[in-house]
C-alpha cells in the first residue's frame, strides 16, 4: 500500500478510483491491485475500516471482548490492502464524480478534498463503496442535545473508547440493535432499557422467509447476541410510539406499549432503526435507483457484476443494498474482477473463473437476509411521523405537518418540488436525513408508494467544499463545470 497524506501526492490518473475504505472498498482495492490495476482508494475517515471495522488500526479499545470477534476480523482485511500496491488517501473526501469532457481516454473526473485543498483527478473506472447510514428515525424532540444515533455511540466507542455517561436508553429495531446494546454495555455504559419497536405483526410476513434464515450463517450468531443482550439488559418490546421530553436537552423518553403511556428519565437516548444504503454520491453521479420494497429504501440499479446504469461506475458493499460486512467484502471483489475485465486486464472466462467461488460465498452470506428485512421493517408511524410538530429536516427545521400539508393541500407530488416549497433537503446534509422521510410522508398523504414519489435529484458537490478549495482548482473547462453544474 502506498499511503498518500498530501493531495499533491495523488497522481493525475488512475485505472480505478474507489470511494470508501470499508470492507467493500478495501477488498476491491486489494483484488484490483493484485490484478495489476493502478488503484486509488480514498476515504474521508482518518483510518481504514469503514463502519464495521472503524478505527481497527487505531482503536484505543484494547479489551477484545468489548467489540467482539467480528470486529477484529477487520485486521486481516486491512493487512491485505497493506500488502497490495494500491494508493490509499485517508481524510480525503470525494465531492464529485463526472464524465471527463476533456478526455476520451479517461472517462471520469473526480473532485476530491484533503486538508482543506481540492483537486480534480481522472480515472478510467470507478467503484463506489460508500456503505450505509442509519435510517432516519424522526420522533418529537429528537433534535434535542442528548439524543444521538446508536451508531454514533458505537463510533465514539470504537474510535475514542468513550461511552455515554449516565442513564442511557436505546430505542428502535433492527439486527444491529442487539449488537450495539451489547457492545455499549460491555464497555461500561449504564443502559437502563432497550425499547424495542419491532412491530409484532412483522412476524407473519417474515415467517415465509424463515426456512432460508434457518440455514443462514447469521442465525446462531444472531441468536447468541440476542439471548445475551436480553439476559443482561432490560428489554421492553411492543413499543408503538416514542417522544423525547426536555426543553434545552433531553430529560426523559415517553413511550407507549400495550396502549399505556410511560416515561423513563434518562441522560442519553440512542436511536436506531436499521441501516439504508448511502445513495448521495451514486445519485449525484447519475446512477439510476429503484425503491426496494423489502429493504424499504432506495438502492442503485445494478447488474450481476454490480455495474450501475452509468457505464464505468460500479457500486459494491452496503451501498448496493444492505447485506452486511461479509457480503460487502465479497461484492467488492466481484466488482473489482469485472472492472479488470472492462479494462482488458483479464478475459471474460478468467473473470468468471475467479468469481465463481466468491459468488458461492456471497450467496451464503446473503441467505436469510430477506427474513431480517421483513422482520425489522420499521412501523409506518416511525417512517412517516404522525405528530405534526416533529422536525423531519434537521437542517432547515421543516416539520412533518408542513410536508403533509404541502402534499395534501398544495398538491406537491415529489421531493424536488417539496424542496422549492419548504426548503427541506436544501441544508448542508443535502437530504441525507430528511429524504427518506419526505418520500414516506408524500406517499402517505397522496395514497401512493415511495417508488411512485421518487427521490431528490442530487447534484455535486455532495459534500460542502469551501470557496477557498474551489478557488485553488485549476480553471479547466471541467473544473468550471464541476462548480456551475
Amino acid at each position, binding site marked *: 500500500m502506498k499511503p498518500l497524506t498530501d493531495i499533491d501526492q495523488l497522481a493525475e490518473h488512475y485505472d480505478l478510483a474507489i470511494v470508501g475504505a470499508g470492507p467493500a472498498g478495501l477488498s476491491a482495492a486489494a483484488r484490483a491491485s493484485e490484478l495489476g490495476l493502478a488503484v486509488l482508494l480514498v476515504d474521508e475517515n482518518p483510518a481504514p475500516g469503514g463502519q464495521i471495522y472503524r478505527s481497527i488500526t487505531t482503536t*484505543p479499545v484494547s479489551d477484545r471482548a468489548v467489540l467482539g470477534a467480528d470486529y477484529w476480523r477487520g485486521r486481516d482485511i486491512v493487512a491485505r490492502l497493506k500488502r497490495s500496491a494500491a494508493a490509499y488517501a485517508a481524510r480525503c*473526501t470525494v465531492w464529485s464524480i463526472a464524465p471527463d469532457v476533456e478526455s476520451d481516454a479517461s472517462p471520469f473526473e473526480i473532485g476530491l478534498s484533503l486538508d482543506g485543498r481540492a483537486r480534480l483527478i481522472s480515472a478510467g473506472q470507478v467503484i463506489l463503496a460508500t456503505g450505509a447510514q442509519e435510517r432516519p428515525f424522526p420522533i418529537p424532540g429528537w433534535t*434535542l442535545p442528548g439524543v444521538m444515533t446508536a451508531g454514533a455511540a458505537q463510533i465514539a466507542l470504537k474510535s*475514542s*473508547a468513550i461511552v455515554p455517561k449516565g442513564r442511557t436508553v436505546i430505542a428502535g429495531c433492527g439486527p444491529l440493535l442487539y449488537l450495539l446494546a451489547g457492545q455499549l454495555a460491555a464497555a461500561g455504559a449504564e443502559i437502563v432499557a432497550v425499547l424495542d419497536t419491532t412491530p409484532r405483526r412483522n412476524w407473519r410476513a417474515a415467517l415465509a422467509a424463515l426456512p432460508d434464515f434457518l440455514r443462514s450463517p447469521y442465525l446462531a450468531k444472531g441468536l447468541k447476541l440476542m439471548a445475551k443482550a436480553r439476559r443482561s439488559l432490560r428489554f421492553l418490546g411492543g413499543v408503538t410510539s416514542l417522544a423525547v421530553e426536555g426543553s434545552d*436537552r433531553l430529560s426523559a423518553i415517553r413511550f407507549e406499549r400495550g396502549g399505556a403511556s410511560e416515561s423513563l428519565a434518562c441522560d442519553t437516548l440512542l436511536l436506531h432503526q436499521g441501516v439504508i444504503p448511502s445513495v448521495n454520491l451514486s445519485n449525484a453521479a447519475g446512477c439510476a435507483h429503484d425503491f426496494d420494497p423489502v429493504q424499504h429504501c432506495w438502492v442503485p440499479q445494478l447488474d450481476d457484476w454490480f455495474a450501475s446504469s452509468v457505464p464505468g461506475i460500479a457500486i459494491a458493499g452496503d451501498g448496493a443494498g444492505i447485506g452486511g460486512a461479509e457480503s460487502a467484502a465479497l461484492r467488492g471483489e466481484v466488482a473489482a474482477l469485472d472492472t479488470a475485465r472492462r479494462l482488458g486486464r483479464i478475459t471474460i472466462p478468467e473473470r468468471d473463473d475467479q468469481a465463481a467461488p466468491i459468488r458461492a460465498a456471497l450467496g451464503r452470506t446473503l441467505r436469510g437476509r430477506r427474513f431480517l428485512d421483513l422482520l425489522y421493517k420499521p412501523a409506518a408511524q416511525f417512517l412517516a411521523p404522525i405528530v405534526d410538530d416533529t422536525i423531519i429536516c434537521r437542517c432547515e*427545521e421543516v416539520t412533518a405537518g408542513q410536508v403533509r400539508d404541502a402534499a395534501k393541500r398544495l398538491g406537491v407530488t415529489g421531493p424536488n418540488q417539496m424542496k422549492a416549497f419548504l426548503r427541506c433537503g436544501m441544508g448542508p446534509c443535502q437530504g441525507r436525513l430528511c429524504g427518506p422521510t419526505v418520500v414516506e410522508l408524500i406517499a402517505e398523504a397522496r395514497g401512493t408508494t415511495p417508488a411512485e414519489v421518487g427521490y431528490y435529484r442530487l447534484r455535486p458537490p455532495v459534500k460542502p467544499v*469551501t470557496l477557498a478549495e474551489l478557488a485553488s482548482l485549476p480553471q479547466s473547462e471541467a473544473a468550471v463545470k464541476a462548480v456551475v453544474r
Partner: protein
Amino acid sequence: MSETRTDRDAKTGRGAHSAATLSFSFDGRRLIGRDGDTVAASLLANGVTVCRETPVSGAPRAPYCLMGVCFECLVVIDGVGNRQGCMVPLRDGMTIETQHGRRQPEETQG
C-alpha cells in the same frame, strides 16, 4: 485518561488504553482531548452538550450521527466556520467555537 476528561456526558469505556493528551479550547474554555479523537468526540468527552445553534430558530444542537451524515456537529475551528467536527481530527492548540446560526462572513478562510 478518564481523570483528564470533565466526565459529564461521556466517560472512558472499560478496557481502553490511554493516548497522548492534546490541549484545545472551546468558546474560550481550556479542555483536554486525546490524540486520535475527532473534534466532535472530544467535545462530547468533555461534557460539551451544545456545539451549534440553528440558523432558522436558534435551537441548540449537538453531534447526532458522528459519521458525517447529519451536519449537526458544525463548529468554528481556528476561525473557519461550518466545519464538520465529527470528521476533523483534533489537533493540539485548536481553537473551537460554537457555530451561531449560518456561517459568519468573518469566519471565512483568509
